[in-house]
């Protein structure tokens, strides 16, 4: 409104409205409240060992959710991520079982992931097919391919490299797995990419207003392609983390990886409509789900409450997003 003068450099914090504060503060608040409740109501919740557990239990979904966040930020969605990760575990597991070089096997599995990401990305960016449909299709294709490769079996992994991410070192009494370190590293990396590089800004712009992004000269198709490839790379890394956590490549694993990661992203305050959100919210969202699962077990409460509470959180998060967006219009 005002044409009034407010010139000059002013870096000061603007009074934040609820709409913009909730996506960042809300998930943290929920995590804090749940943690506080569990630390009062159970004896062991705050024990170093228990906290380290919660993080370990978050590593796979936490990593899948990074890719999911990037894709949702562009206004897309990925239903195939868990399936892609499982395929990578099976490929790596089977190759190593057949006496191939472990490092090369793992690398090959990750390359396959990237290849799938490339196909998904091409269909979405070049042909303009809806991400929901393309990734739904790939969910089926990849799951079938996994079962064909596994031939009804599972592959126990004994190799040190493949299961390395499950090893732990001691940090102030808590066991920290290398997988955790890898995951945190990925979060830092993606946080940097999203906030400090043009690529990240373009991701937001594409999800926020695709036409505007095109008109200001952002190579929208290439950006989308890069997002799907990068996300697939992350799914490959998630496979490595999964083998560290459970050293057994099992075609039946991670069937809910897609929905679990969408849940984490949404609870973390990222808008399903794209263009809004941040990666640390996703980590918080993942932790909220793990804290619930852990805390409810410690309290001896029926595990069905976990699904119930998670469901309510998802709906609340989306409702808040919707309300704050409506206000902006």
């Amino acid at each position, binding site marked *: 409104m005002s044409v009034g003068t407010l010139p000059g450099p002013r870096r000061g914090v603007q009074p934040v409205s609820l709409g913009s504060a909730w996506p960042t503060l809300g998930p943290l608040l929920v995590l804090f409240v749940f943690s506080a409740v569990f630390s*009062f109501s159970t004896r062991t919740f705050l024990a170093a060992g228990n906290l380290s557990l919660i993080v370990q239990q978050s590593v796979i979904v936490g990593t899948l959710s990074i890719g999911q966040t990037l894709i949702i930020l562009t206004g897309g969605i990925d239903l195939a991520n868990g399936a892609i990760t499982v395929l990578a575990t099976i490929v790596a597991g089977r190759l190593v079982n057949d006496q191939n070089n472990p490092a090369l096997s793992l690398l090959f599995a990750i390359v396959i992931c990237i290849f799938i990401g490339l196909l998904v990305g091409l269909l979405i960016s070049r042909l303009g097919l809806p991400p929901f449909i393309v990734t739904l299709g790939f969910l089926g294709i990849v799951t079938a391919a996994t079962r064909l490769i596994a031939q009804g079996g599972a592959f126990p992994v004994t190799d040190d490299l493949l299961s390395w991410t499950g090893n732990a070192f001691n940090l102030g009494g808590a066991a920290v797995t290398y997988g955790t370190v890898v995951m945190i590293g990925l979060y830092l990396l993606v946080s940097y990419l999203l906030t400090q590089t043009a690529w990240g800004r373009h991701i937001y712009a594409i999800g926020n207003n695709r036409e505007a992004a095109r008109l200001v000269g952002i190579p929208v198709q290439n950006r989308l392609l890069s997002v799907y490839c990068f996300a697939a790379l992350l799914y490959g890394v998630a496979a490595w983390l999964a083998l560290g956590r459970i050293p057994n490549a099992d075609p039946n694993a991670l069937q809910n990886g897609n929905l679990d990661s969408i849940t984490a992203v949404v609870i973390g305050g990222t808008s399903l409509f794209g263009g809004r959100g941040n990666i640390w919210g996703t980590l918080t969202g993942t932790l909220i789900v793990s804290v619930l699962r852990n805390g409810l077990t410690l309290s*001896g409460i029926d595990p069905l409450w976990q699904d119930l509470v998670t469901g309510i959180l998802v709906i609340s998060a989306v409702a808040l997003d919707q309300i704050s967006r409506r206000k902006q219009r």
Partner: protein
Amino acid sequence: MHPPLLTHNGVSLSTNLFTQQAKCCSKRFLGIRNKNKGLLLAPLFLAALIGMCSQARAADQTIIGLVTKTEVNPYFVKLRQAATAEAEKHGAKLIPRFGKFDGDNEGQVAAIENLISAGAKGILITPNNSTGVLGAVKKARDKGILVIALDTATDPLDAVDATLATDNFEAGVKQGEYARKTLGNKTPKLAMLDGTPGGTVDTLRHNGFLKGFGIKEGDPAIVGKQITHGAQDEGQTAMENLLSAHPDINVVYTINEPAAEGAYAAIKAAGKTNDIVLTSIDGGRLGVEYVKGGKIAATVMQFPKIMATRGVDYVVDYAKDGKKPTGFINTGSQLITDKPFPDLPSKDTKWGLENCWG
């Protein structure tokens, strides 16, 4: 809900915390406008709810964890109910957990880890995949927790302290023998409706059936095999397809009774109920009723309640005197049919309905 043990600080503390939070959040921290208040506070209310539900336990109460494959399968529901009742009888506390789908190793591992954290004395588990959860089981055992596999054995068997299970191979043999006898001297045309490929139980039942039936894998008498995941809809589809490919099928193996129910629908639609011997295994109430109603010729009953109650008893004993059970403990199986053969020990459906698990 669990019986309240109202001797704790948990509730009052967490409720306090909740009210403080709510006040500070709603007024200053977020500067909420009225419209949104309800939504924002929803998680807080939930947290309070959890705070009130959770109970600080008496320090010496024995905690027993139960980790099943899924919650949807009524078999596991019965297992859990029996275990909960038995635990209550002994003044112990049973914490049930489950995977989200058949094969959810990650879910089972997390459940075991969290139960260790919760201070469980013993963990009863129906392991998903025989090798998938062994790492977590080892962690638990290293901590001195008694781990007993229920229903499904681990591979190797001694990855757990003891296994309480149906000898599924033996059960399969009973099913196969009965099928063969009923067929008489007709040339067998066998259709096999399997569960999940590679599953331990599936393999044992499948192979046991073939042994009892008196043929080997690859025998030309086997005209078709299909995967049903033990589900009725998939069982029906599989049977429909098999029947259209091989209309001369005269005997059917099913992995469980839901699959058999599906197969029956397909057989009935094809008008072949009198030409085909349909057999199953499991022994749920519905299964016994199918036998009684003539849908299934016979089923082989297993006894999950015994697994559950014995498992709980072992943990309670272990907590008292440190005595651990070992090895494979067969909880038995029983052929149920109303058309018995004198040389095959069986019980009728009346007995079956009295003794079935659900």
